[in-house]
């Protein structure tokens, strides 16, 4: 059940996407998100979709994995679609019954919204699927390092992020184990009425919290044993180096973004 959660998972590989400099990958992902949300209309969405499909194809990660990352968000997508469908009131009227109205604008926006969110999830999953959490936080730290001058705790933030990411799979595994153990004692966790299930969640959450605190304690001790004392003067095992292919990738992304903007503009006028 919980094994189906793929957010934050990393699939080791050696594709071109895997080998890109993580700093560039983060910037590219940001531009990609801008591309999805600034451009309006079919054309810019089509450009975004094309960009997604090409990247997914290049990453050589099975399409199934992306479907899996979207699956848990289906209820959210459904709610978004329904709300937009009924609440947006613009354009031609398709259907009216008492206070319920479906209009052209509503249909458009709800379809666009759903596609946009799917693309957004696919794109950001691609980032985590192809970049190991450690390089990802390294890159974030480097990208945010100018903020250090403003006394912003960049290193601490990056460290917390990398620890959090690192422990997602561990926590999922732990949760699975505790659920199994409580089920073995006859607790109804995925069966039974809502109230019994809610009650039995206590039997899962209490041990989970306790073990998380224990883990945090152990990790802190282990870090201190290795003389960790913050980011000051710390050197890195893996130095991030950019190469021509990173600049090319960034350039291609920018071209896509501009194309999306231009086509949207041309279609409007």
């Amino acid at each position, binding site marked *: 059940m919980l*094994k189906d959660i793929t957010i934050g998972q990393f*699939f080791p590989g050696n594709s071109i996407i895997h080998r890109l400099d993580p700093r560039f990958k983060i910037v590219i992902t940001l531009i990609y998100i801008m591309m999805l949300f600034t451009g309006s209309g079919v054309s810019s969405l089509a450009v975004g979709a094309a960009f997604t499909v090409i990247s997914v194809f290049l990453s050589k990660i*099975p399409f*199934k*994995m992306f479907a899996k990352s979207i699956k848990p968000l289906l209820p959210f997508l459904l709610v978004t679609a329904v709300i937009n469908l009924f609440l947006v009131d613009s354009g031609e009227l398709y259907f009216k019954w008492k206070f319920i109205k479906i209009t052209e604008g509503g249909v458009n926006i709800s379809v666009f919204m759903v596609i946009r969110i799917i693309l957004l999830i696919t794109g950001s999953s691609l980032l985590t699927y192809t970049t190991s959490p450690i390089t990802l936080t390294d890159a974030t730290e480097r990208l945010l390092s100018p903020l250090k001058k403003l006394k912003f705790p960049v290193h601490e933030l990056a460290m917390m992020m990398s620890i959090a990411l690192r422990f997602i799979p561990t926590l999922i595994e732990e949760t699975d*184990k*505790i659920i*199994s*153990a*409580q*089920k*073995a*004692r*006859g*607790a*109804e966790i995925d*069966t039974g009425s809502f109230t019994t299930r809610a009650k039995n969640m*206590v*039997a899962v959450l*209490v*041990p989970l919290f*306790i*073990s998380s605190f224990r883990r945090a304690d152990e990790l802190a001790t282990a870090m201190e044993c290795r003389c960790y004392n913050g980011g000051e003067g710390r050197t890195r095992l893996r130095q991030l180096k950019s190469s021509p292919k990173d600049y090319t990738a960034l350039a291609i992304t920018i071209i896509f973004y501009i194309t999306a903007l231009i086509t949207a503009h041309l279609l409007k006028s």
Partner: protein
Amino acid sequence: MAVLETQELTYTYSEGSPFEKTAVDHVNLRIEEGEIVGVMGHTGSGKSTLIQHFNGLLKPTSGKVLLDGKDIWENKEKIRDVRFKVGLVFQYPEYQIFEETVYKDIAFGCKNMGLDDAEIKRRVFETAHDIGIREELLQRSPFELSGGQKRRVAIAGVMAMNPEILILDEPTAGLDPAGRDKIINHIKNYHNKTKNTVLIVSHSMEDVAGFADKILVMNKSKLFCYDDTKKVFGRSEEISEIGLDVPQITKVFTQLKKQGLDFGKEVYTVGYAKDLLIKNLRERSI
């Protein structure tokens, strides 16, 4: 009749994904009522996956698990009843403790069974007594107890459900020798008292050699052998080959045999070795 039986039991993790792995591969076995079975195997040999099928936590990819001759997955709604009949104590069970008091935590399983309060109280007191948890501890928070005590509380929680089959996954992992002996003794006493079937997973032959009737060895997802303890230790060399450790005393006797001192019997407990040696020495001195 066999109390537990598997037919061509197979389980594949993450079927169809790049992480696909068959953890249990066409396993057939019959466990008779009242036996103590030692389940052994390397880390990743599939033993933990296998035992999670016995109480219906995992559903076989193919094959069947029969409890008292009935397929446990025949009726999905009844799978909870299977869990009351087959009690499973996980590895490091102290991490599943969550209630405010030791009493409540031991009672959790019984409560889920729907027993009345008087019966729950009787069972909790009895099990706690049998497993060496003093009565005054019952009203304390389980988190104040020592590691060994916590483990015993967790085991008591499953024992109190009085399952027909009790399965313990590495019940002694991470305990000191004294704590280990205590738990093993409590399990022996439980078996003597209830005559229920007991399965103990362990990767230490030393642990189970002394009291298991039968030994089940898993190797690379397959059933390597399942036979009387004596016969299994008769194959001690094969067992060493697949990377499992045989008891030290068995090693000594295998070496003696190689050097020409054959006692003609498989030795796997120190007590038995002592008797055998004394008997032989007496015969010789006569």
